[in-house]
């Protein structure tokens, strides 16, 4: 696992949101998905910078959709998690699971 594939917390959340959205993942839907699931709206600067960084690290791929009138004729940039991105998400999940394993938290029930 290279350094480029080690995810920060927000990168991890963004990748999971993209995976949940499937073919419908672009800026607006990703922001809404994160807001709905985590209860906090990501800062626009953070979201777009993170998407660009993930694409630069080849953890994402993007394709341009068709321009639409409600967007002033601008195309949506749809993103998908690449094979390297999937590896990175799986690695992050394994790390979290190992860190949680055996931790006793009184009053918290584990499902």
């Amino acid at each position, binding site marked *: 696992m290279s350094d480029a594939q080690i995810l920060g917390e927000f990168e991890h959340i963004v990748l999971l949101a993209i995976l949940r959205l499937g073919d419908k993942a*672009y*800026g*607006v839907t990703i*922001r809404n998905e994160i807001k709905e699931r985590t209860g906090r709206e990501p*800062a*626009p*600067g*953070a979201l*777009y*910078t993170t998407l*660009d*960084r993930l694409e630069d690290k080849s953890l994402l791929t993007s394709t*341009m959709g068709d*321009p*639409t009138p*409600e*967007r*002033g004729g*601008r*195309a*949506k*940039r749809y993103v998908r998690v690449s094979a390297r991105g999937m590896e990175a998400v799986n690695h992050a999940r394994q790390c979290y699971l190992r860190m949680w394993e055996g931790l006793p938290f009184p009053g918290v029930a584990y499902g």
Partner: protein
Amino acid sequence: MDKARIAERILALVLSPDRAASAVGDWMEDADVRGPVWFWSCVFRTAISQVWSDLAGSPRLMVRVGLTGLCRLLLPLYGFGCLLDVLMTNLPALRHWMWSGDGWRVTVLWNVVLLPVWLFQTGRWIAQRAPGPVAAGCIAIAFAVSIFTLVVDVSMWSAGVHLPPYTLAKGLATQIPCNMVLFAGAVWTRRSSVGSTA
């Protein structure tokens, strides 16, 4: 020009044109509900965030651009100053002309033509050296020049050289218009290169 186009041009300074257009399109979807303050906040926060990301993401490149830009900017300026000094020392007629009241022409030529042209050319050089993070490259050079000014003034002050009051503040304030010309050169070249590849 409508606000979306202006926003797109601002963002295109720090993102590729298609990424800038799609981000602005995303905010246009919600702009009617959330209002113009939210829209412009998205534009500027994204631009600032991207510049910071470029600075922090490639520190070696930024340090290299900052230092080589500083040398490129200052060496010819100091060279010109030294040349003028040598000429005035060795050519009494020139020295007389400079101090007789017509010397302002040289000052005007320097401040209005030569310096802006050189700053603009340096901006173009930044855009060629750091074609993606142009704004970050300009900030790196501005930062390097500010540090240099600070070090020179503090060294002179420590050595007992009498400096007029507010020298440092004036030196740093002068950089604002200089950096704007520098940035204009970088933006000009970036837009030309993006336009030619689009």
